[in-house]
């Protein structure tokens, strides 16, 4: 979750509530048995059930409505980028453009995305960014917090039919024969988090009766003679879910082969998601929908007239290279991993609630184009990075 920032604290005034609670006896084993092996970072919990967030039913309705409207606006924005040929502003490689247009028209399978929202219950949710290509924390949101609720508050409700939405979508893709492959491959890099995210997705596909195969991205083979991709056992890959960003793939050795193969190989998420995963879309959304209650001003290349803003790279992740500027002074700057090698988007600072130093950002999941639930991650600092704690939620 790469998210920005907090500005003015809403401590004590937000209507969303953060409540302390004793963790379940043996919680580590409980979450491990469901696949969450990375529940504790070296010096702090990642899965944090020492607290939970409590929403009202009307607050959940607000989040659901905002997410659905934001998704609709995002689809309009993709059409706008295509119609007005604004790919260069987003630094999308020209070789990808024909395939973005083609997949946009043909609508190959697209599973999900996650909006990161600032919301405390008193004002409308504000979009921080859209993780449209490689969102993670799915296991925590869809599975782990659901089981926490069943154990702790079985009578309460939770805005979380993410799992159900995924199984429904896979079932539809299978029964309506939208998948090229009888088996679906799931590619990821060699990290525990990505393995578990991908395994959660594989599990949801298998619940729909689809055979799945896992593969590390670096194990994917290119068959020079037949000009198609193979897995580690030389099985032809026809449908591949990849938890690996499009812009990275296209820069790599097989990038050209990936585009060449799009005729015959389904890649999930589809390549048109590059447009929405690019943070420049925040500026295009603001340009198109300046009266939306869910957006804040954003601009590509310069802060324009803003004095308090967040500066973030067009294709950054997990808070990489994010800076917060207030009145011209750098208030926060994340360590850079590769230098300032790409353009930036400048977004007005959003208010993020502050619960005694805990800054929650709402991850709102879109499954098959519909808002299906949320997960909450909280940070100590102003930027939501890869150590932000996942805290369960309920609503009454």
């Amino acid at each position, binding site marked *: 979750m790469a998210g920005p920032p907090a500005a003015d604290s809403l401590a004590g005034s937000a209507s969303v509530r953060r409540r302390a609670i004793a963790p379940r006896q043996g919680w580590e084993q409980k979450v491990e048995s469901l*696949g969450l092996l990375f529940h504790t970072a070296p010096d702090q919990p990642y899965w944090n059930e020492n607290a939970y967030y409590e929403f009202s039913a009307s607050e959940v309705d607000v989040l659901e409505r905002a997410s659905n409207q934001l998704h609709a606006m995002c689809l309009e924005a993709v059409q706008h980028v295509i119609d007005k040929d604004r790919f260069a502003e987003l630094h999308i490689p020209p070789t990808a453009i024909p395939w973005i247009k083609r997949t946009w028209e043909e609508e190959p399978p697209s599973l999900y995305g996650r909006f990161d929202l600032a919301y405390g219950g008193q004002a409308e949710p504000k979009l921080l960014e859209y993780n449209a290509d490689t969102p993670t924390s799915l296991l925590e949101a*869809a599975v782990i917090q659901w089981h926490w609720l069943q154990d702790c508050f079985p009578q309460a409700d939770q805005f979380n039919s993410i799992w159900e939405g995924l199984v429904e979508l896979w079932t539809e893709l299978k029964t309506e024969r939208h998948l090229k492959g009888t088996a679906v491959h799931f590619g990821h890099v*060699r990290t525990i988090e990505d393995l578990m995210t991908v395994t959660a997705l594989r599990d949801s596909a298998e619940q729909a009766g689809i055979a799945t195969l896992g593969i590390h991205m*670096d*194990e994917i083979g*290119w068959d020079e003679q037949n000009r198609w991709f193979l897995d580690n056992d*030389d099985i032809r890959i026809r449908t591949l879910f990849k938890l690996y960003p499009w812009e990275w793939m296209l820069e790599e050795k097989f990038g050209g082969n990936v585009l060449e193969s799009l005729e015959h190989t389904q890649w999930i998420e589809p390549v048109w998601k590059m447009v929405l995963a690019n943070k420049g879309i925040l500026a295009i959304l603001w340009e198109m929908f300046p009266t939306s209650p869910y957006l804040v001003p954003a601009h590509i290349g310069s802060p324009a007239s803003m004095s308090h803003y967040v500066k973030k790279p067009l294709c950054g*992740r*997990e808070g990489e290279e994010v800076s917060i500027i207030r009145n011209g002074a750098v208030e926060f700057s994340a360590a850079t991993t590769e230098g300032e090698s790409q353009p930036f988007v400048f977004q007005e600072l959003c208010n993020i609630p502050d619960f005694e130093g805990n800054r929650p950002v709402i991850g709102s999941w879109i499954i098959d184009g519909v808002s299906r639930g949320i997960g909450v991650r909280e940070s100590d600092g102003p930027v939501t990075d890869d*150590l932000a704690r996942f805290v369960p939620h309920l609503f009454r």
Partner: protein
Amino acid sequence: MKETKKSRVVSVSLLAAMAATMLAGCGSNPRQVRRCADEQGNVLPDTNCERGYVGGGYYGGGMMGRGGYPGWVYGGSGGTTPGSRVMGFTKTPTAGADVVTSGGRVISRGGLGGRSSGGGFFGGFG
């Protein structure tokens, strides 16, 4: 009945199996051989199963017979070359199993996945 916004059931099997495997310190999956076969287990050339290979079912491009044969079968014992016989197979691979087939083609690897994700403890993309 009151409408809820939570999943009615969240039942995981692959996740649980993989977690158990990793916690046991065993990182490799069981392997199953995949063959193309008819209902009696007669092994056929792969092309009989590759044609018409589509999502959601097994059929052989106009050759589909009862029960989706010929089709890919997994596991079992017996030969792997066309004309041999396989016994005790299933129509879907075991959850979490790696599927093995014969190769022999010129394959390049390592052209994707060259970048890890971020510098954090867990990795991950966001």
